[in-house]
């Protein structure tokens, strides 16, 4: 009976995870304060850049769901950005310009593509998984290049942004920014629930030790495929927002460079943290913006930064911050 004592005590929360949720909340508040600040500084251009950053943060977080928690390095995730973006283009060409219908269409396309390509890709592991997802991503890329009705290689301009339940909320840059922020928060809450759920525990367990999970009765494939499809669907939401931000859709959204950038954002921010994806998107895109102003050779500087980060903080920016936080606590 004495051994019942530990049961009464609640399991200690992993402080790191709770800390990450707190960090995300701080980020969301900062994001919410950014537009008024930008207009006060007479720099409203940042609202549009900010929208782009937040949309990429959604995509990076969605990728982190499978990359960080499932060790599934998808190198074809830009395809789902593209499906979201083309959902806007295709539906609006038929006069359907409601944001939620477009998101639904992007999700349906992405779910279908992810279900089929995921089922095939997940028969492989490690490097082979990376290569095969890359190959499927390129297939989608070339499909849209040859889709001449929507401009093919040249892309397709959108005459106006999507409507929200019949209103022109996204017509203003601020409306679009805050809608994107709201969706970012919603996706974060959803992902956070998933990783802490029954499903999330099994999915993470498969990352930790596949054989062990099979030996207690789980067939990994079903769990990995489900997570892959969820991640793809969430990524397509980012694509819908990016199309609205740029008011332009082209296959460039789906190129393998873009898939690589998403991976860089996740790794830079810190894998398996969700918040890391957000941080990674902010840092990568702001660096791209600022270094691009300094010099044409900005990728060289960005690459150097990336190498240093990976060398000195393999757990990314969130890992670095946690380490500094712990260091301070000890003193």
């Amino acid at each position, binding site marked *: 009976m004495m*051994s019942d004592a*530990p*049961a009464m005590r609640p*399991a*200690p929360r992993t402080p790191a995870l709770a800390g990450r949720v707190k960090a995300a909340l701080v980020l969301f508040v900062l994001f919410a304060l950014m537009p008024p600040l930008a207009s006060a500084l007479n720099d409203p251009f940042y609202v549009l850049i900010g929208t782009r950053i937040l949309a990429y943060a959604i995509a990076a977080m969605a990728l982190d769901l499978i990359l960080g928690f499932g060790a599934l390095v998808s190198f074809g995730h830009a395809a789902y950005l593209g499906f979201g973006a083309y959902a806007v283009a295709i539906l609006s060409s038929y006069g359907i310009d409601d944001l939620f219908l477009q998101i639904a269409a992007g999700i349906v396309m992405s779910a279908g593509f992810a279900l089929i390509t995921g089922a095939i890709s997940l028969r492989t592991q490690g490097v082979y998984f990376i290569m095969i997802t890359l190959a499927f991503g390129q297939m989608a890329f070339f499909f849209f290049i040859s889709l001449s009705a929507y401009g093919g290689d040249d892309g397709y301009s959108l005459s106006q942004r999507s409507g929200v339940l019949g209103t022109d909320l996204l017509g203003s840059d601020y409306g679009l920014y805050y809608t994107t922020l709201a969706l970012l928060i919603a996706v974060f809450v959803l992902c956070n*629930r*998933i990783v*802490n*759920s*029954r*499903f*999330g*525990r*099994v999915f*993470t*367990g498969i990352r*930790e*030790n596949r*054989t*062990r*999970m*099979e*030996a*207690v*009765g*789980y*067939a990994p494939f079903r*769990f990995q495929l*489900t997570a892959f499809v969820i991640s793809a669907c969430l990524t397509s939401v980012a694509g819908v927002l990016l199309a609205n931000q740029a008011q332009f859709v082209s296959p460039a959204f789906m190129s393998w460079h873009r898939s690589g950038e998403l991976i860089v954002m996740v790794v830079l921010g810190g894998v398996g943290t969700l918040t890391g994806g957000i941080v990674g998107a902010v840092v990568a895109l702001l660096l791209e913006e600022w270094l691009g102003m300094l010099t044409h050779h900005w990728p060289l500087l960005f690459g150097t930064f990336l190498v240093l980060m990976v060398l000195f903080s393999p757990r990314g920016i969130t890992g670095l911050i946690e380490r500094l936080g712990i260091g301070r606590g000890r003193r």
Partner: protein
Amino acid sequence: MTSLSVQNLSKNFGALKVTDDVSLEVASGEIHAVIGPNGAGKTTLIAQLSGQLRSDAGRVLVGGEDISQLSMPDRVGRGLARSFQITCVLPGFTALENVAVAVQARSGSSFRFFGRVAEEEALNAAALRALEEAGLGDRAHVRASSLSHGEHRRLELAIALATEPKVLLLDEPLAGVGGEDAEAFIDRLKRFKGRFTMVLIEHDMEAVFALADRVSVLVYGRIIATGTPEAIRSDPEVRAAYLGEEEEEVA
């Protein structure tokens, strides 16, 4: 209680016959030990029984049901669980989480995406019970990667218990455990006797003779003798093939 029947099981790696026409009858509630020198194919046999490895020929029956064509997860669902010789746990999970995920596999759907699994009392309580039975209750909230080797062996046992097996395959549960730890471990296994059928692969002869109802001797993939511990101990062929060797090594 459930019996385990192995019929003419074979496995070749190229020209090497690792499992050579092995047949074995394990009665309900029996502890059946499989002993044999290194490289005899004991772990391969466990891998074939658990479904981790496909057999080239032969059948495995649990309680009369042929499970030869089932995958490892499906066999666990039929009540056939195993532990690993080389520790096989989820290193980033706590001991409790390692066991709770095994409990979860047999209680309710794992396709639930919203509720916090860490707060599911039923899972945690069952997991803690299994941990305590394995002698690891006081380390429930320690990460598996921070546990000692002896604790890993107990965690292996707790995870296997949590699947509520009908037939439990124990692959050298005592590997690398010595002294008092080993004695406590043997006592623990003794207490499970009668709760489920056990196949025990073990190098520790003291453990084998203390626990087993019957012993089979595996040499070069073949079973050369099966009998009570006393009969096996005095079997001249077994002594020549195995026990004698070991005694010489010790001396």
